């Protein structure tokens, strides 16, 4: 069964029609890449999946988004939704507190206060995000002292600590150097065993390297959706081909 079922989704920012009749089925335990030129709506769609668009004034949504068959714009508690659907932002945004407290923030939010339990969660999350070895001796130090790449992996670990089912990544490597980028990419591939990953990226190679499925957006519409290999080698749509080969975008 598909993790996300998006049907007839339209999204408006006031009068601006940002997403037009989007229909997508996103399978579990795969990496789905959203690609397309700036302003095409890919980030907007990503933020619709954990309702971060609720924060945007004048944002209006019609249509349905089902998570495991449940309508996330229906009766579902939005905080519970965001626990199930974690998010990693474009710019690493660790909280101005210790590394430990950053990871423990989510679990504490959801009522876990036992020291031993938190210790376990912190270690496991940091291990899963492949950053444990680098930070295990300075868990009590401020997270703001880490490098950008480390901060981003910390943010991934922080998202993992609440045991989500889905991980949304909004251009997670656009602010990072190539080495940090490849670490995050390896991590994403590792994580898809346990999580469904949906990633917005501007980097064609990245999408081709790590994703299983690719969605190409243009002006708020889904132009093409398919297996990454197929989209990149024999795209069905001329516009997709033009974009991928760099003729515009």
């Amino acid at each position, binding site marked *: 069964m598909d993790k996300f079922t998006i049907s007839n989704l339209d999204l408006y920012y006031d009068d601006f029609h940002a997403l037009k009749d989007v229909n997508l089925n996103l399978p579990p335990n795969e990496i789905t890449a959203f690609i397309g030129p700036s302003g095409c709506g890919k980030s907007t769609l990503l933020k619709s999946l*954990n309702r*971060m668009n609720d*924060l945007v004034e004048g944002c209006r949504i019609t249509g349905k988004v089902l998570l495991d068959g449940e309508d996330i714009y229906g009766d579902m508690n939005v*905080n*519970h*939704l*965001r*626990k199930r659907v*974690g*998010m990693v*932002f474009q*710019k690493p*945004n*660790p*909280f*101005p*507190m210790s590394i430990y407290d950053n990871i423990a*923030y*989510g679990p504490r*939010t*959801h009522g876990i206060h036992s020291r031993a339990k938190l210790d376990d969660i912190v270690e496991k999350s940091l291990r899963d995000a492949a950053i444990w070895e680098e930070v295990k001796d300075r868990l009590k130090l401020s997270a703001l002292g880490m490098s950008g790449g480390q901060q981003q992996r910390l*943010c991934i670990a*922080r*998202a993992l600590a*609440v045991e989500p089912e889905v991980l949304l990544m909004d251009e997670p490597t656009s602010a990072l150097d190539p080495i940090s980028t490849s670490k995050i990419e390896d991590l994403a591939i590792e994580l898809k065993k346990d999580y469904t990953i949906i990633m917005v990226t501007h980097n064609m190679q990245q999408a081709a390297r790590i994703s299983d499925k690719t969605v190409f957006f243009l002006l708020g519409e889904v132009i093409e959706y398919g297996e990454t290999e197929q989209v990149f080698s024999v795209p069905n749509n001329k516009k997709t081909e033009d974009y991928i080969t760099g003729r515009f975008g």
Partner: protein
Amino acid sequence: MKDMKETIMKIIFLISACASILAVALICIFLFANGVPAIGKIGAGEFLLGKTWRPNNNLFGIFPMILGSIYVTAGAIIAGVPIGILTAIFMAKFCPKWLYRFMKPAVDLLAGIPSVVYGFFGLVVMVPLVRQFCRAFELNGNGSSIFTASLLLGIMILPTVIGVSEAAIRAVPDQYYEGALALGATHERSVFFTVFPAAKSGIMAAVVLGVGRAIGETMAVIMIAGNQPRMPKGLFEGVRTLTANIVLEMGYAADLHREALIATAVVLFVFILIINLLFSLLKRRQK
């Protein structure tokens, strides 16, 4: 010709820039030149820790007034800071827009009210209330007291605390707030456990500025604090602050008495200096 203009304008700017520095320097020189010798004559220990202020008998101990200022300021912090900080959080993160349009000017107005008007309000409204309270519970005190002054000063520091705290909270990047929401935290939790701690040093700066305002306040305090130059006896009894001491006796003081009052101002000045240092330290840490 053009160079000439440049030079003249440069000099004008330089003079303007120096004016405020000059003013501070002159005040410093005046205070210390007149005050420090007096402290020497009275004896620093006698002056700062002496418990009796009786100029007629050449007893110049300002310890009661130092305590008075500290008590009244502490009281103002206890009364004003929690309300101020919570108001700032409300205004920055919870307030609906239509309400904000009324609240912001109201708080600004609070800052603009002359302190003598505050004092008059205290004298006419608060003092009688506290007096009734004291009678009802058979406490000593006629209403002019540490308690009354603290309460009024608490109100007077509100605009400072609210304004600076609100700015500090608004300066916290939205990404912290959004990061917390994305972990499934509620709006309230994101605000109180992520945004608020991130604004901590700015809010501390607000408190320090509030302390500065409270300790320097004169007019309103004189009108409602009782002004007895004696060791503070209790929450509901009168007290004299450093500022009140200076103002009340300056008019008729002469010789050593006059110098002792200037020395009192030196002590007050040092207090304010410490507070300003704290403030700039906190400001630096915020960056």
